[in-house]
């Protein structure tokens, strides 16, 4: 049985459908991410699980029990708020002791558990400080410690790293992964940052306009996006417009606008639907596109163009190639070869190639 099950949940604010018939199920011990642009309904969904908001339709089951009508304080679920919501008039220790006090844990036991919790997030010795005297990263740790001190079944995290700078963010991500493994508590993590979601989670639900677009493991989400939105939202993607030319169990042939006929992988179970003439896009990751001065190896789809511009990013360089037809394709090349920081200059004529299995044809 899933620890958290969301069955057909909807939530409407006036005319605006914030959450539209969402169903999810999250297993115990999982690190689960709700990913989507702002306004996609992910925070609303989280607030309904926490009990701050109630669905207009559908049900939320925690451990198999419908939680409708149960107030937040009675739910075995805690939240790490985006603002951390540390009580400014209480010390770090008093903040962390808060849930224990509410649960009626004795002073001595409470003191011991607060100390353990502080050690767990390497904040020993900070217990007497007030939140205003802590750095951003320290506040974040206190918020997590406070939410975990009484071992809830489920921890909800609402963009907890959004306020931190890039370096600190990366370190806190690693800390969160380690912590989650240690405590074994299920994390549901809301973020709009796709890299963060890919880095942290076991599974990700990509949300858009109140709906779940795709739910999968990070690698599958990245490798086989189910639709245009997911392909575009996760990482960067070339979206090449075109239509089906021929489709069989073994091969898919596409006629791409401004490029011509290319081969692609057949879409499983869609042979009947993707008949010749059906339009869509070929989603092609820049790192799967090869560019070279000589013609690419046989077996590649190939075309030619000129380097239009490039972005040097240190570890990789992204080239924008303008094909002869005017269509632009991005290619990402590693700069790992010593002394070869840059391969091409703007204006260079190049061959562009990719393997048939590199891209995914999407009709939504």
């Amino acid at each position, binding site marked *: 049985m899933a620890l958290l099950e969301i069955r057909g949940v909807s939530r409407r604010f006036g005319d605006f459908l914030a959450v539209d018939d969402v169903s999810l199920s999250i297993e115990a011990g999982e690190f689960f991410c709700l990913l989507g642009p702002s306004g996609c309904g992910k925070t609303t969904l989280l607030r309904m699980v*926490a*009990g*701050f908001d109630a669905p207009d339709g559908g049900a939320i089951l925690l451990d198999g029990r419908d939680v409708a009508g149960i*107030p*937040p*304080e009675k739910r075995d*679920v*805690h*939240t790490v*708020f*985006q*603002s951390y*919501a*540390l*009580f*400014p*008039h209480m010390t770090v220790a008093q903040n962390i002791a*808060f*849930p224990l006090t*509410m*649960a009626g844990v004795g002073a001595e036991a409470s003191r011991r558990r607060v100390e353990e919790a502080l050690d767990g997030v390497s904040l020993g010795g900070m217990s007497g400080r007030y939140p205003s005297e802590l750095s951003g990263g320290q506040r974040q740790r206190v918020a997590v410690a*406070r*939410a975990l001190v*009484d071992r809830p079944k489920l921890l909800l995290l609402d963009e907890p790293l959004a306020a931190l700078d890039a370096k600190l963010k990366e370190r806190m991500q690693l800390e969160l992964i380690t912590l989650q493994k240690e405590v074994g508590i299920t994390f549901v993590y809301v973020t709009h940052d796709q890299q963060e979601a890919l880095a942290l989670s076991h599974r990700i639900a990509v949300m858009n306009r109140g709906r779940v677009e795709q739910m999968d493991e990070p690698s599958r989400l990245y490798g086989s996006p189910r639709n245009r939105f997911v392909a575009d939202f996760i990482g960067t993607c070339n979206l090449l417009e075109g239509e089906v030319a021929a489709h069989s169990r073994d091969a898919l042939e596409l006629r791409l606008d401004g490029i011509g006929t290319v081969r692609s992988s057949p879409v499983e179970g869609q042979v009947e639907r993707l008949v010749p003439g059906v339009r869509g896009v070929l989603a092609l990751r820049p790192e799967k596109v090869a560019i070279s001065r000589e013609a690419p190896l046989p077996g590649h789809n190939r075309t030619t163009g000129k380097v239009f511009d490039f972005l040097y990013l240190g570890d990789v360089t992204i080239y924008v190639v303008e094909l002869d037809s005017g269509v632009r394709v991005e290619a990402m090349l590693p700069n790992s070869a010593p002394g070869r920081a840059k391969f091409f200059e703007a204006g260079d004529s190049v061959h562009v190639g990719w393997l048939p299995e590199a891209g995914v044809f999407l009709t939504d």
Partner: protein
Amino acid sequence: MRKNSLWLPLAGFLVYVFLYAPLLIVVAFSFNDSRLNSQWVGFTLEWYRVLLHHEAMLQAAGNSLLIALVASAVSTVLGTMAGFAMYRFRLRVLPLLVLAPIAIPEILTGVSLLLFFVLLGMTLGMVSIILSHIAFCLGFVAIVVRSRLAGMDESLTEAARDLGATPWCAFRRVTLPLIMPGVVAGALMAFTLSIDDFVITFFTAGVGASTLPLQIYTMVKTSVTPEVNAISSLLMLLTLVLILVASKLSPSALRSGA
């Protein structure tokens, strides 16, 4: 780089002179050894001594203090509730009733309360004054409390609930301590407003009771005597102390209330 021109500080300074000179003159004349408020003659504490034996004035001061204490206590409780309600719920009638007495000229509140009490057959006096003062102080407390709440991170209360606190418990342990400076500032403001009020008291006092402002009004209206300077100076000292306490507690609340 803009040059700091001198005319702005100069103009500002003159306005401060305009604000303070009249009050300083009153204080100065309270120590002046002359019955006329026209010319400095010499230093005396005579007018403060006279004040100590001015029965009607002492009686009025006692009344004012009692009224201000009761009115500020009740209006702080009701005003805090109103401020909280206005912040938390979407209400139509309450905000209107809270803001209207502040927005319309005081005399209107005064005369309508006069009509109300007389038609009820109530004898005007201490009780009618206190009831009226609560009605207009309440709104000021509510505004201060609401602005304090609006400045508070909403997720703090939610965090308390999330961590196991009942609504009442979350209010008592998190919300109330955080809005306390606002509540205290509101209470001090209500106290000051009540003890200073002239217009509404003027209409609701009847012949039954006198307050300090009414007493001052009568004295000023009939014949200006230096005792007025003395009692005025004392009152200014009292408000000065109160305002300093309040500003220590919540500078922003004071600003929003005034």
